[in-house]
């Protein structure tokens, strides 16, 4: 399984904070995102926003970063703290 979590404006747009995906060849962040879109096609335009950031196991990573079963993947808008 892969745990996927959404934050801030993205979570509100999707109206969803967390989903679980079966790990079936989801070997990169990009493939995880595509699997979500395949399951929830109504999220496509929101999840394909160029500005969205992603993290795997609490590290910010890019779309090609490898993912393995048990990982925590997060998607969120650019950060605005401080």
């Amino acid at each position, binding site marked *: 399984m892969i745990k996927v979590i959404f934050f801030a404006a993205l979570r*509100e747009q999707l109206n969803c904070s967390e989903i679980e995906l079966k790990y079936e060849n989801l070997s990169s962040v990009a493939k995880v995102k595509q699997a979500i879109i395949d399951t929830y096609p109504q999220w496509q335009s929101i999840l394909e926003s160029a500005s969205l950031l992603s*993290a795997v196991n*609490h590290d*910010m990573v890019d779309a090609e970063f490898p993912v393995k079963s048990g990982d925590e993947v997060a998607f969120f*808008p650019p950060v605005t*703290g401080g």
Partner: protein
Amino acid sequence: MTIIVPPNNQQRISIQKEDFNLGDEVALLEADNHEDGAIVTFSGRVRNKNLGLNVKGLYLEHYPGMTEKSLEKIVDDAKHRWQLGRITIIHRIGQLYLGEQIVFVGVTSKHRQDAFAATEFIMDFLKVNAPFWKKELTEQGENWLEARSIDKNKAQQWN
């Protein structure tokens, strides 16, 4: 308040709902620390204007776990660049109102230029790498803040 004196070279990172006292934080950075002559602090507060709307307050969301990890990495990077003593980062989360403190960074060093550079470096990377998000509460309603390109540019200048 009980003040626990950290050993030298120690760092403290706190993500908290509660307010903090800047004087107490500086006292902690200085306590029993006679090697570092310089201390630089930054503090950020909720101010009353952003994009021309009247701000009543902010709601601060974060990504528990990743926030701490990202701040620890920023502190590690700073310690590799400069000779630093103690470092404290406090970032508040949850509901904050006008004038309230949001963030504190304090750095001690033997030399003032190291303390200045490290404090600004930590703030610049906190702004682009630490997973916090601000929702502004204005008289016209709520809205998530957009990231600013100036912050991305500031962080890139350190490369």
